[in-house]
């Protein structure tokens, strides 16, 4: 074909600058604390009990966030083999394998981004298996390697309707972490501080939800690809005032776009839902491809996973237990299906893209017939693309591109 189309530009957000600073400060604060010992550092899984840790004065570092950075910088694909070589299979979580590979090779994206030499050394490792078992194995490796205690919450799995015994159990497990954490921090647990962290986390979550739901507007003011970048604070700064401030700013900007009819994708023709993990190393390429096809990926299960508006400072343990149990990833198939149907009501998308991530079965919901069922029930087409969150050896870009293009052609024809 003679003419090559110009690359559509991603419309940047003004709040992007604030986002950059917030993320940088997060890492500088951790780096400083790790070096000076001024504050204790807890490593926490992305949907782990961060509020408790904050409430107990820990600085919180999220290895999954580091994993995503390894993916986005495409360092992951080079580093994964080093973890494979010490016995961690290429078939398991590629956050885990790339992160361990990064540790073994003493290479981190933090160096280029922030001039930080290494990830902050933990004083304690805290997981919640609500998302998967891999996080426990991941943290246990560091526990052995660095001789640091590892503690955690073991969740019920594939939950349908939530039962009281499950909430009681999880709330108790969260509470039971306190003595071990007190031992590490050397401070007594302070209920008021904990409640404050829960309240701030809730406020962050509410604002994050409002930002995500702004994509219900036609045209949508932002895309899933934008949201994967702007979700940083929802993960690393929930339970802080900075997180709250940030999403107030972003929400105002989204509203501004809606009011003036500015869409993220010029001439938005199709609206899509993304189910599954991002393909971190290919966010830009995918975002550009969808934009050039006038398709806006308006919503995703992934970005929605950091909405915890169940938090209630008056019942901090129970409400945390509810929030971390109601989570999509812990639920059974009927719940998940209904969840996506509800999203369809809100966001009115024309099709769903399932990402089958080779190394994360937990976030690959195409494997038990859900795409077919949803397509039938919602009367919209679905597409599954094969790839991975971090391991680009599992991704055929050409194949994925053709599939996406053909999917949009199908939408055009119908």
């Amino acid at each position, binding site marked *: 074909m003679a003419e090559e189309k110009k690359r559509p530009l991603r419309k940047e957000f003004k709040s992007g600058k604030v986002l950059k600073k917030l993320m940088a400060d997060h890492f500088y604060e951790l780096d400083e604390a790790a070096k000076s010992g001024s504050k204790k550092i807890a490593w926490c899984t992305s949907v782990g009990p961060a509020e408790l840790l904050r409430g107990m004065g820990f600085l919180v570092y999220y290895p999954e966030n580091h994993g995503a950075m390894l993916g986005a910088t495409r360092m992951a694909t080079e580093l994964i083999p080093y973890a494979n070589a010490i016995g961690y299979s290429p078939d398991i979580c590629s956050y885990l394998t790339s992160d361990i590979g990064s540790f073994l090779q003493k290479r981190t994206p933090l160096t280029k981004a922030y001039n930080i030499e290494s990830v902050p050394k933990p004083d304690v490792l805290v997981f919640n298996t609500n998302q998967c078992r891999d996080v426990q194995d991941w943290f246990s490796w560091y526990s052995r390697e660095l001789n640091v205690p590892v503690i955690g919450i073991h969740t019920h799995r594939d939950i349908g309707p939530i039962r009281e015994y499950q909430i009681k159990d999880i709330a108790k497990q969260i509470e039971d972490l306190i003595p071990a954490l007190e031992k590490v921090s050397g401070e007594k647990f302070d209920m008021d501080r904990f409640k404050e962290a829960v309240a701030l986390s809730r406020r962050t979550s509410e604002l994050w939800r409002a930002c995500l739901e702004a994509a219900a507007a036609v045209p949508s003011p932002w895309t899933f690809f934008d949201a994967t970048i702007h979700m940083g604070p929802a993960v690393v700064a929930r339970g802080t005032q900075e997180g709250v401030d940030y999403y107030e700013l972003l929400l105002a900007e989204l509203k501004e776009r809606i009011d003036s009819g500015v869409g993220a994708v010029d001439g938005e023709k199709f609206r899509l839902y993304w189910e599954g993990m991002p393909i971190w190393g290919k966010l830009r390429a995918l975002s550009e491809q969808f934009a050039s096809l006038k398709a806006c990926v308006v919503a995703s299960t992934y970005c929605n996973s950091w909405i915890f508006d169940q938090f209630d400072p008056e019942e901090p343990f129970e409400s945390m237990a509810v929030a971390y149990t109601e989570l999509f990833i812990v639920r059974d198939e009927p719940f998940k299906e209904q969840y996506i149907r509800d999203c369809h009501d809100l966001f009115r998308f024309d099709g769903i893209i399932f990402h089958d991530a080779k190394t994360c079965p937990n976030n690959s919901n195409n494997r038990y017939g859900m795409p077919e069922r949803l397509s039938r029930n919602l009367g919209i087409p679905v597409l599954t693309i*094969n790839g991975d969150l971090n391991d680009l050896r599992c991704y055929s870009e050409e194949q994925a591109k053709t599939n996406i293009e*053909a999917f949009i052609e*199908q939408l055009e*024809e119908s």
Partner: protein
Amino acid sequence: MARGFFVGVDVGASRTKVVVLDAGRSLVGYAVRKSGTDFAKTADICLRESMAMAGISPGQIDNCISTGYGRKNVPFSSGTKTEISCHAKGCYHYFPMAMTIVDIGGQDNKIIKLDEQGRRLNFKMNRKCAAGTGAFLEEMALRLDVPLEDMDGLAQSSENLVELGSYCTVFSGTEVLEKIRQGKKVPDIVKGVFLSVIKRVLEMDALADTVVMTGGVVAHNPYLVEMLKEIIDNEILVPEYPQLTGAVGAALFAMENGDRKQFVGMGA
């Protein structure tokens, strides 16, 4: 000189196919060549050959659409469509009915479902690897040391099928060597190789309605169609030139938008 001719170019990973349709949608010229590494050049040569066959000059072409893996590398096409859409269009042209299309190409397989109006219901491509595609057959022919074009005849003459277990092309190669060592007959192994291709297809999707098979592998190995027919216990339709369906679909797309005389011409 009358215009009203439409060209479809299908640059596949393995072969490039070009067709010329007249205004009555009849196939009047075509060419097939190895895609090689210079897609633009191969497409150009195929276009010249198919024009010669049709007895027309470039000035008589109204429009051209390209498809396939190298669709963006065809300088003389006015636009592109994916091979999925083109196969669907091409098959529906020959068989206007609800159908499941099974296309076995050089490096990928596709299953496309159409309703009675020819609208696409869904489609699937094989996953990243070449299991069950033309590339798999080529590799097995190499291991068995038989020319690719003899495979069909050999499979047909088999009396005792030898099944292969793995779906990995490389492991299947090892398995083939193992079977040879065990003294199994080549025709029986070849039939097993065909069955492996069929199994990969059956894993991809349920085959509903009328099944239409296309692609180079089908063009050169009609016995594979016979085998699948027996397994699914259903009629299978195959267009006259199964390898050209994608290119025909592209030419039909060219015709739909062809009244604007969009043909951009050829290089020297």
